[in-house]
């Protein structure tokens, strides 16, 4: 197509002979509505996905939690049904043998511990863990506080890190950091309060209620040597599967069980379960996208109808243009452009409206509003924008294509016949 042809097509596109304003307004509104639907659905999907991902990360990223189980088969002279036990020394052993893990910590929890501050006494669960637990399990202290450090662990300090919900129970509005609490009667200094976080999935209680003390302190406080579980973290999620195989082999050798024995260890691999969640949210987004596309298609049908009406109404003008030498594509392309123009104009309005709606939603405080807290903040991302623009373009072209084709089939001799 030459530059002159493009000029001709644009001239015809802009010429009053082709434009039609009244019904166009309605159809542009329909497209805008469809765009709002598709954008909001996808934005909510994205918000939900982000929220789920952060929630999943709330417990820690790329971690596996491993509990000891009972063997289900005899192994090297040991009978089946043997109870596997993790001990405190196993932590150092595993760290040495399994360098592929970025971090390995042991964890013990006691339920029915009394915590008291002033006149208030409550029964709570208390966890003993290595100092690395803070990073691995995403135990981030709120301003003014800290998590357990290596020295605390080394010196078996009586320090305690408390979940925010538990802290509120115990201290109310008071700032707990630096205060003393009694743990089964023994004084502990509060070193930090867990910063508020979204957590999906937990074991042995949610972190917001968890009180953590150094593992070494825990051992002497309760006189326990057996770990409840291990938590292992990898740097690269792809290495988790291989790492866990090596863990089974190493522990199998140490504790005496067949590494293939699925009952000997209970493993919660969050990398693997995240995959399901990612697939779930992807599926959800595809579903929402399809609904949005269908809504837009309704608008597209409106555009196509307008264009058919224009072709019908302008049959004679089209015949005249053909009679004085217009080529088919000089007739069809202005129609396609017009349809595309209506569609994109509607899309632009839709984008504005959606942005406004999303902005207004972002002003609603999430605090205490559980629905919004769960749904997450709707987010308009670049991929959503590109996807919507492509869908709009395709619908615009499609809605223009068929009416334009009909216009090109007009026979000048037939339409200009004088009756």
């Amino acid at each position, binding site marked *: 197509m030459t530059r*002159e042809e493009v000029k*001709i097509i644009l*001239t015809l596109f802009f*010429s009053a002979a082709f434009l039609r304003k009244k019904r166009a307004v309605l159809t542009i509104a329909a497209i805008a509505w469809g765009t709002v639907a598709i954008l909001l659905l996808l934005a909510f999907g994205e918000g939900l996905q982000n929220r789920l991902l952060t929630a999943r990360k709330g417990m820690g990223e790329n971690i596996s939690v491993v509990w000891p189980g009972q063997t289900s088969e005899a192994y090297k002279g040991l009978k089946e049904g043997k109870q596997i036990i993790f001990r405190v020394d196993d932590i150092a052993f595993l760290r040495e043998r399994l360098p592929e893990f970025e971090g390995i910590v042991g964890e013990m929890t006691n339920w029915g511990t009394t915590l008291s501050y002033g006149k208030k006494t409550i029964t709570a669960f208390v966890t003993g863990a290595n100092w690395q637990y803070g990073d691995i399990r995403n135990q981030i202290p709120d301003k003014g506080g800290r998590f357990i450090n290596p020295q605390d662990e080394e010196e078996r300090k009586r320090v305690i890190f408390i979940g925010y919900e538990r802290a509120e129970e115990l201290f109310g509005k008071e700032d707990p950091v630096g205060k003393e609490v009694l743990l089964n009667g023994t004084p502990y200094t509060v070193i930090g309060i867990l910063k508020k976080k979204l957590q999906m999935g937990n074991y042995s209680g949610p972190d917001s209620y968890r009180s953590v003390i150094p593992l070494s302190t825990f051992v002497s406080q309760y006189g326990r040597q057996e770990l409840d579980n291990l938590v292992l973290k990898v740097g690269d999620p792809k290495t988790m599967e291989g790492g866990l195989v090596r863990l089974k082999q190493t522990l199998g050798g140490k504790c005496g069980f067949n590494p293939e024995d699925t009952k000997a260890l209970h493993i919660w691999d969050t990398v693997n379960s995240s995959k399901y969640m990612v697939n779930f949210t992807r599926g959800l987004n595809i579903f929402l996208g399809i609904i949005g596309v269908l809504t837009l298609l309704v608008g597209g049908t409106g555009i196509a109808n307008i264009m058919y009406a224009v072709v019908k109404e302008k049959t004679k003008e089209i015949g*005249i243009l053909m009679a*004085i*030498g*217009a080529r*088919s594509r000089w007739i069809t392309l202005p129609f396609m452009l017009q349809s595309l123009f209506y569609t994109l104009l509607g899309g632009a309005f839709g984008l504005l409206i959606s942005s406004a709606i999303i902005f207004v939603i972002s002003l609603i405080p999430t605090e205490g509003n559980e629905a919004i807290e769960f749904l997450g903040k709707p987010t308009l991302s670049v991929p959503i924008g590109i996807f919507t623009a492509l869908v709009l373009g395709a619908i615009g072209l499609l809605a223009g294509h068929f009416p334009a084709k009909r216009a090109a089939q007009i026979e000048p001799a037939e339409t200009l016949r*004088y009756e």
Partner: protein
Amino acid sequence: MNIPFFRKKNNGGDGNGIAISMDNITKVYDTGKIKVDALKGIDLSVKNGEFVAIVGPSGSGKSTLMNIIGCLDKSTDGKYELSGELVSGFDKERLADIRNRKIGFVFQNFNLLPQITALDNIEMPMIFGRVPSSERKQKARELLAKMGLSDKEAAKPTELSGGQTQRVAIARALAMDPKVLLADEPTGNLDSTSGSDILSVFSELNDQGSTIIVVTHDMALARRANRIIEIRDGRIVSDQKTN
């Protein structure tokens, strides 16, 4: 005064001075239910500079023949050469180009684009013919002046009288310096005064060298031509020079 677009132009092969050459042209309208033999073998030759009137009773095939001559429609069979080009074999797109470059068509019901001005209407074929914009405007103005309508440049067709509208239509037909000017009952919708105005325009154009073919019921117009062809029932029944 030498007005360039009224000069007889030699647009490449002019078929040895022959504008139109038809050999056994037939046209069958097939509406599915019934077939109408509108033209039953037309042999016709028109030289450059001729002024031909086609007459005949209603339904005899005059418009059908004009549409084929004007490349608005294709014959069912037969050979048609327009200034040396064998257009009977052309496809839609090439016919569109031929209509633009070689044919100027004037209709009984004017067929101007109603939403745009007289000047824009005259420019339209030149837009399709890729005439540069400044040249286009100038030529459109000259043609309007030639038709005595310089003051109607910005008028929409609905604001013009029948005779004025038809003169704008003639100006549009002349915009691309066509090989032949075709007019199917150009005075059919006009009163006798405006009708005779239009006749004078055709005579003048013919004097300046234009090849003109006019379909008419009006014997007064027919007698202005230098050749009268009579059609009956899809056949040429007489073909005479006047005076």
